Structures are given as structure tokens and as C-alpha cells.
């Protein structure tokens, strides 16, 4: 498949921990914002693709389409959370290029800043997790990733300073971007002395918690010519997984220090785009924790295994350096909306409208979406 579609509109709500608006209002605000950005009337939308778990059970497609007054001709969903968002253009391209739909929206929103169970509600999906993990207090993502980090440090010699350089780098990008949930600078000393949550991970290693939403609009490259902003083309998409259930993936995967699916998904997306890793100008990847940034960067093939810590410590992930990573500050320092904001940021960069945090001369950007055991990759290209 060669995708012949573009992202023509992006929208997002302001990053805040707690919003007085409910989730549906936040999502609709982002969707209207994205349609306005595209210059496409709500009634012209005729398809929806989201993740298949979180959105369908919180802000259903039919609710959104009814609110838009739009008649659906294509309704898709793929994976869940971040991988689903990164892969939603995969399904949108299949639908649009097959003539099943003309304008497809993708959206995602969370109210985990407000909702009591927050990001931990997914435990209810898995009886084995409830039985063999929760009673021991192995019951939250910082604890899972803390366990991984400890072992990763032993296997690859990662130092606390290297791990901290991810948090420090992304804070710098967030401050450059502006408007994020945190406005305070972070030094490596701040990082090393911050309170621990699940050792060796501390507060700056963990993503923020957010109430917010994002959305984007996709259409054919032909229709994209008539939109308000320059199109950003979907050059390649990738999806991959492994046969390990979501309740077992933090402990039982034989390759537990390797991001499942990241390598094959990246290969698929690059092959579809007809480019190589060296053609990628920046990467926005799913930074739920500092350690997961390092693992994904390696497993996507941008660094050798065990070398991403040094890559960050040497400043090579900074805007203006070798390969800028999470140019808006990501989940660690901007806001946590499970990957939709990474797509929005990649589009801003490729339009050249990022302003204070613009990467120079962007041609190709990659987005990595991580939802164990699934991985999604989106490769986007600038117009012209």
C-alpha cells in the first residue's frame, strides 16, 4: 500500500491537569478546532478512526458524528491508546484510497486528571493481573517501568545522569514550545534530588496527568490541495505486535527490555514511505517514562541497543542537533494525551509553523505510538 492521503487539520485543547469541561466537550473542542484549521465543514466528514478501546467506551464515534451533523460512511478503530493513534492514518488511507470515505477524523481525549481510577483503570480488563500482581502492589505504570529500568541499568550500564538527561532535554523543549503544563526549568541536579516514586524512577521520570484532547483531519492528497493550510502527507504507517497478553507483557515477555513491535512497525512504515532512518528529521515518541523513550529510540533502530542514554546525555536529541526528539516536551513536560499531541506536533513541525521550537528544514518526521504489546509508527512528509 502507498498511502495517498494527507493530514490537513489539527486541533488540541490547552494542556491542563484538571479541566472544568467534561471529556466530550474537550474532544469536540479539538475536533472543531481541527476542522476549522483544515477549512473543512463539519458536515463533510464521512469517516472516523480512533483507537479501539479508550475512545469507543468514553467518547463514542456516533456521538461525535451526531454532534457534527455528519453521516458516517467508514468507521474504523485500531489497537488502543498511543499505538492506535499513530496507526489511525493506516486505516484512514485504506478507506480514503478505496473510495469508501473522503474526509476522516481521528481524535483522542482523556480526563485522567479528574477521573478517580486515572490511567490504572485498565487493570480491570485482566483477571490474572488482578490476582497475581495487584495484591503485591504491582499496580501502576511507574512501578512496572521502575522494575524495567532497574534491570535495563544492569544490562546496559545506563547511569542515573543519562536517564535524567531525557527529562532535562524534554523540559527544555517544553519551555521552548511554551504553553505546556509545567513552566519551571529542570536541571540534572533537580532531577537527581527529586522524590522517588518507584525506584529508580522519580517524579521527573514520569508523564504528567492531563485532562485534554486532540484531533486531526485526513483526506486525499487531491482534496488536500483545497484546504486552508499546506498538507502534511502520510508517507508511511506501521503496526506490529507480539503474542504476549497485556497482563503478562511487563513480566513474562522473554525480551522484556525490548519495546514490542517497535522494530517491525518502523520497518513497515519506512518501507511504505520509501525512505531510510537517516531521512527522518525528528521523532515524536510515546514518552510515558524516560526509560520508555530510550527503549523506543533504540528499538525503532535510531540508536544501537543500550546507546540511547548517551545519545541524550550528549545533547544529540536537542532541537538543532542530530535527531530532535519530542520537540514539544512530550508527556514528561508538555501534557499527557496518549500520542495525539505527538501527531499534532509533528504536523506543526512539517508545516513549518512551530515557531519557537521549530526544527529547521523539516522534510520527514516520525511518530511512535506505544501501547504494550502493540506499536504504531507514522511517517509524515512536508508538502513540496
Amino acid at each position, binding site marked *: 500500500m502507498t498511502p495517498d492521503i494527507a493530514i490537513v487539520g489539527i486541533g488540541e485543547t490547552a494542556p491542563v491537569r484538571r479541566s472544568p469541561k467534561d471529556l466530550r466537550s474537550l474532544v469536540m473542542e479539538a475536533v472543531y478546532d481541527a476542522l476549522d484549521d483544515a477549512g473543512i465543514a463539519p458536515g463533510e466528514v464521512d469517516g472516523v478512526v480512533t483507537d479501539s478501546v479508550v475512545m469507543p467506551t468514553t467518547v463514542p464515534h456516533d456521538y461525535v458524528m451526531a454532534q457534527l451533523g455528519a453521516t458516517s460512511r467508514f468507521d474504523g478503530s485500531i489497537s488502543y491508546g498511543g499505538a492506535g493513534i499513530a496507526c489511525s492514518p493506516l486505516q484512514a488511507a485504506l478507506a480514503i484510497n478505496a473510495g469508501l470515505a473522503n474526509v476522516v477524523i481521528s481524535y483522542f481525549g482523556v480526563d485522567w486528571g479528574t477521573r478517580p481510577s486515572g490511567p*490504572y483503570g485498565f487493570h*480491570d480488563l485482566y*483477571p*490474572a493481573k*488482578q*490476582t*497475581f*500482581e*495487584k*495484591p*503485591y*502492589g*504491582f*499496580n*501502576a505504570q*511507574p*512501578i512496572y517501568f*521502575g*522494575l*524495567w*529500568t*532497574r*534491570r535495563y541499568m*544492569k544490562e546496559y550500564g545506563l547511569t542515573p545522569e543519562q536517564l535524567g538527561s531525557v527529562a532535562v532535554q524534554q523540559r527544555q523543549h517544553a519551555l521552548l514550545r511554551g504553553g505546556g503544563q509545567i513552566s519551571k526549568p529542570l536541571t540534572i541536579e533537580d532531577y537527581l534530588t527529586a*522524590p*522517588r*516514586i*518507584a*525506584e*529508580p*524512577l522519580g517524579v521527573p521520570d514520569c508523564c504528567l496527568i492531563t485532562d485534554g484532547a486532540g484531533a486531526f483531519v485526513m483526506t486525499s492528497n487531491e482534496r488536500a490541495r483545497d484546504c486552508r493550510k499546506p498538507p502534511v502527507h502520510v508517507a508511511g504507517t506501521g503496526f506490529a505486535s507480539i*503474542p504476549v*497478553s497485556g*497482563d*503478562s507483557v511487563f*513480566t*513474562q515477555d*522473554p525480551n*522484556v527490555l525490548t519495546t514490542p513491535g517497535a522494530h517491525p512497525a518502523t520497518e513497515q512504515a519506512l518501507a511504505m514511505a520509501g525512505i531510510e532512518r537517516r531521512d527522518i528529521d525528528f521523532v515524536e515518541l510515546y514518552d510515558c517514562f524516560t526509560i520508555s523513550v530510550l527503549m523506543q529510540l533504540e528499538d525503532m533502530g535510531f540508536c544501537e541497543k543500550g546507546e540511547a542514554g548517551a545519545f541524550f546525555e550528549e545533547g544529540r536529541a536537542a532541537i538543532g542537533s542530530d535527531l530532535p526528539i519530542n520537540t514539544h516536551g512530550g508527556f514528561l513536560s508538555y501534557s499527557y494525551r496518549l500520542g495525539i499531541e505527538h501527531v499534532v506536533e509533528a504536523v506543526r513541525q512539517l508545516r513549518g509553523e512551530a515557531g519557537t521550537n521549530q526544527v529547521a528544514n523539516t522534510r520527514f518526521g516520525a511518530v511512535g505510538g506505544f501501547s504494550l504489546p502493540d506499536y504504531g509508527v507514522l511517517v509524515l512528509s512536508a508538502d513540496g
Partner: protein
Amino acid sequence: MTETAGDEFQPFWDAAAAGELRFPFCRSCQKFHWYPMIRCPHCNTADISWRAIDPTGSLYSWTVVQRPFDAAFNDRTPYVVGLLEFPDAPGVRLITNLVDIETDAIEFGMAAAPAFDLYDTAESRLMFRPNVKPARSLE
């Protein structure tokens, strides 16, 4: 016991109550798997037994949890979550709490044995005690 625990999990707890550590073992392909599954994920047969193993594990990794994420743990922090491997059961890793050890003394590969003496059927938690005292023979 949690209300959602399936019957397929009960043999683990029955074994713990009897002072044994047992994991699902496929008689057809002779491999362990964990967590319990409906059929063997390696060969897809249903010929699964619960095989008792030498219960001394080796510490693969651990984390010291300083901040509780569940109100039930408010008075337990800091606590240590460990992930154990077992020479007798390749492919199985077990989440547990490490007890009776100073956090600074925890090491990779450390041997840890089930604290059957602390096992409480009402709580369904089998904790492990790292073997930091002078070696005692395993029964």
C-alpha cells in the same frame, strides 16, 4: 481472593497453602507458561498440569515503591516488588513482595524462597524472603 479471580488460578493458591510452588506445565510440549492460560500457548494443546518446582527463585529485578497508587497500600510504603525467575521453570517470572531485607542489601540474582510461614489464604499473597542469612539447607 479477588472476586474476578478465575478458577484456573486456584491451583496456585492451593499449592501455596500446602507449602509448594506450582506453575502450569504442558505435558505435551514439556514447557511452562505463566500466567495461566486456557491452552498451552506454545503448542495449543489443553494437556496442562500444575508442576511443583524447587521454590527458590533468583531475583531478576525489583523496585522500591515509595508512593502508593492504591489506598490499600497507604500504610505499606515503602515496599519492595520483586520479579523472580526459577531455574526449574524456564520462561516463568513471578511478581512478589520481598520481605525481611533492607532495601540497600538487595542484589540482582539474589536467591529468595517463599515465605510460606506468612502465607494467608484470605489475602492470597505469597511473599518471598531473600536468602541473606547464613545458608540453610532447602527442604
